[in-house]
């Protein structure tokens, strides 16, 4: 899977970072960094949770072909 964040949508609500800190990090300037663009399958549950919890719907998952 590939984690995609629409940075035009992201407003640094930081929920994704709470759910999956291995994948998402906010800098001190409130910019979002995707630490693992292709996280391990074992993290799928929490990445999906981050997708659901993002109040701005800025996160999506693209499946590897």
């Amino acid at each position, binding site marked *: 899977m590939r984690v995609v964040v629409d940075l*035009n*949508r*992201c*407003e*640094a*609500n*930081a*929920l994704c970072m709470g759910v999956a800190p291995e994948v998402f990090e*906010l800098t*001190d*300037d*409130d910019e979002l960094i995707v630490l693992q663009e292709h996280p391990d399958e074992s993290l799928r549950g929490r990445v999906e*949770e981050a997708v*659901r*919890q993002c*109040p*701005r*719907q800025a996160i999506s998952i693209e499946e590897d072909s």
Partner: protein
Amino acid sequence: MSTATADLYYDPYDFEIDADPYPVWKRMRDEQPLYYNEKHDFWAVSRWDDVEGALKDHGRLISGHGTILELIKANIQMPPGMVIFEDPPSHTTYRGLMSRVFTPRKMNAIEPEVRRYCQIELDALEGQSEFDIVEVLAAKMPMRVIGMLLGIPEENQQAIRDSTDSGLRLDSSDDYSTAFKDFSGSGTQDLFGEFLDWRMENPSDDVMTQLIHTEFEDHTGVTRTLTRDEVLGYVNLLAGAGNETTTKLIGHTVRTLAGYPEQRHELRDNPELIPNAIEESLRFEAPSPIQSRYVAEDVEIHGQTVPAGSAIVIVNGSANHDERKWGPTSEEFDIRRSMDHHLSFGYGLHFCLGAALARLEGRVALDELLKRFPDWSIDYDRSERSHTSTVRGWDKLIVVLD
């Protein structure tokens, strides 16, 4: 429509229903998850899945005709800069200008200042046996904080609040058609305008200065700064949306906790539970419980077609009580409830820009109240609900200290 459900009636302008809308919303969820109101000609969704789905469906359920039912019906031209009443691409542009201004990190940074203000206001109540919490704190605090962020001098703030309030209020159940004629802020435009003109000559480290000077590429591809009208629209929106709703949040929280002394004591003894208590208060009594949209193209909901050109009311306050999402305790207040999110701030494209600010004000106000006054009750005979079709809560809430 079957005769068995013929007496189900929901009307956001009916003050009696508005006083306790939850039984009606429950019936809507159970009996008519897609509800149609003939009198005012609108559709409504009330279940969690449908409400969240409708909020996500910003391509077909649009905000460009307003998000308040009477605005959509009146077909009023929206003033520029009102992001809440815009769709992509212009929404993306305008909203982007403020996308890093109200983040949780930035809001938490102003906590000491917000807390100090709150302490001064509450310390002044020492020795009193009762007070109107709306007057002494809930109405003043949001104006003061948004004013602080905008850089507006304190002496101008009350005048602005009075003007916004009168624009939102319904005088009687039948007055809705004209209630919003001033929503574009004809009164506040002047007050903010004066300050804006001064601020253009005297830049500072505040949101107003940022709005005036930030360069951006607009949706037509031109790089520019906001026009004066756009800045005024933006500022009116921040003040209007930020004040009333946060006032209602504080009022609801104080009123609800009056009825749950055990939970109140638990909060006093465990202040770390306060943030979750504020989330539960937001869920339990949504300050802005209905959102309206214009239906730009036909949508099918529960097997029925809602035709293009209709108005649809998205009852987020009902979704927050949906048993299908929250289980059998959905109608109970529980400060320890475990939740991922509620829909009181909306969801998706128009998710409340000031959510982190509202949360900050809510938890600071509750924390400082509990520190001083562990026990209170409400004198309902002297309290008054406010009547608008969009914001629900108390205009006057008499707190009696025990």
